């Protein structure tokens, strides 16, 4: 097990909060011909356009794409929060029609409950699933230590910075020990140090419990460092443009950014994104 990069003094890691014997259930995600349409004042908006993808059990898949291309909508549909207009989302073969607690979600905004302290926010999930109060709080305390906010355990969300709030949101999603994690730019608001620690934690977690992770990010380095595959989405209406296999060996460290394979992969990504971004921008110009 690799020690945490920048906080070797930090004794507790994310993996410690999961029971090591937890059974890894077969959870494959299949998105089949999914379209999501919104009713906007200006008419219908196609946010996701006939997207198909599959994520294998234990796989780490990142999604990158220009702003407004439908990444959040796709993730929400996978979580059962957005009804498909067409197509379907299958989790382990079952259609996702409503949220399920074994699927954890970290939203783009923290969406913390403003009337609950950090501790109570994180304990909300275990309590909702019927755990006794004391146990829920114990789980929360472990996760608070993991995200380095012990001092703020009883603080209310509005007294925290954006990055701290996002860390609490991540801890809250992990408290139910989900086997599938859907993460929407979870580290976007974090500083470089905390981000590195959280990335390490996430990789460790994945290896230990074989979690399936779908991860939206704007950061190509992050996507390549963490993922088995990177999906590049086209400008809205969102479709999947490219499915890139990241066949760099694991465990990875930030040193891989110097390797030739990494550089080639990153160049491919950037080229695609740049041309796609230009197209998106031009599209917007034409529309307005």
């Amino acid at each position, binding site marked *: 097990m690799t020690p945490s990069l920048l906080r070797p003094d930090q004794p507790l890691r994310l993996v410690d909060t999961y029971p090591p014997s937890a059974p890894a259930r077969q959870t494959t995600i299949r998105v089949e011909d999914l379209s999501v349409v919104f009713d906007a004042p200006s008419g219908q908006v196609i946010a996701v356009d006939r997207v198909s993808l599959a994520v294998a059990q234990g796989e780490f898949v990142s999604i990158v794409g220009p702003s407004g291309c439908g990444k959040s909508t796709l993730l929400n549909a996978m979580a059962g929060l957005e009804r498909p207009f067409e197509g379907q989302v299958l989790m382990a073969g079952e259609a996702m029609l*409503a*949220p399920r607690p074994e699927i954890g*979600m970290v939203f783009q905004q923290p969406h913390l*409950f*403003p009337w609950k302290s950090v501790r109570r926010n994180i304990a*909300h999930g275990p309590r*909702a699933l019927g755990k006794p109060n004391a146990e829920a709080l114990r789980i929360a305390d472990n996760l608070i230590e993991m995200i380095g906010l012990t001092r703020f355990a009883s603080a*209310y969300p509005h007294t925290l910075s954006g990055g701290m709030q996002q860390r609490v949101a991540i801890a809250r*999603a992990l408290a139910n020990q989900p086997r599938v994690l859907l993460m929407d730019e979870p580290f976007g608001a974090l500083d470089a140090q905390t981000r590195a620690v959280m990335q390490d934690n996430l990789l460790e977690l994945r290896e230990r419990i074989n979690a399936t992770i779908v991860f939206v990010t704007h950061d190509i380095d992050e996507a390549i460092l963490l993922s088995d595959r990177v999906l590049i989405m086209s400008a809205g209406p969102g479709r999947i443009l490219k499915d890139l296999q990241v066949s760099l060996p694991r465990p990875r460290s930030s040193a891989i950014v110097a390797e030739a394979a990494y550089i080639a992969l990153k160049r491919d990504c950037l080229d695609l994104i740049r041309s796609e971004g230009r197209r998106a921008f031009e599209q917007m110009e034409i529309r307005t």
Partner: protein
Amino acid sequence: MSVGGRSSASATARLSVLVAILSVPAFTGVWELVARSGFVNAVLFPPPSTVAVAILEWIRSGQFFADLMASLSRVAAGFAIGAVGGIVLGVLTGRFRLVSSLLSPLFHILRPIPPVAFVPIVILWFGLSETGKLFLVVWGVFFTVWLATHIGVQKVDRGLIRAAQMLGTPQPQMLWEIVFLGALPYITVGLRTAVSISFYTLVAAELAGAFAGIVYRIEIAQQNMQTGQVMGGLAALGLLSFVADRFFASLAERAVWWR
């Protein structure tokens, strides 16, 4: 300009504080003088000293306490029932489309009718019983609280509800911990408005016929031409509803504890 301006500004500030302190005593003094001067009929427009004597007499006879309790218990019981009913139904209509389709049209038709207008039918239904008075206060409070709750629930951040759904929150916990608390800032505003409405409907309820109560006492005094007692009753009612409003305002501030 600078020094002179500032000192004259602070002089104005001091003067306005002084005027504010003297305002009520000054008007009371003028009232006393006018009422005693003989320009006006002192029976219809008694001086404050007469009102004060009437109030003291009211308290000494023991009737004041009985009247106060009668009025207060009507307001308190009516407020509690109306508020709880309004909050519960407001959460349900705000959260569930079907419940809203069922109840909201009816509530929107009934809500604009001033509660006072129900006095005649309440007398037909309940006679002069306490139930009828309770009904009027409940009626007035309920719709205000219901509407505030209904709107508040619909304004609850959808992201919070989604986050709670993802965590497997069961329905009762969702309604209580997320929807109700999310709407609480709106609900407290509705409750505070309902406090003054409950006093408003109390007046109608007691005027319609009662055997004790502050407004009942005012009415009896009017029939006996005891104008001092009438004014004393008004003062008591004003004070009571002021205290209730202040009490509720401070309660409402504390209710939204996370701000």
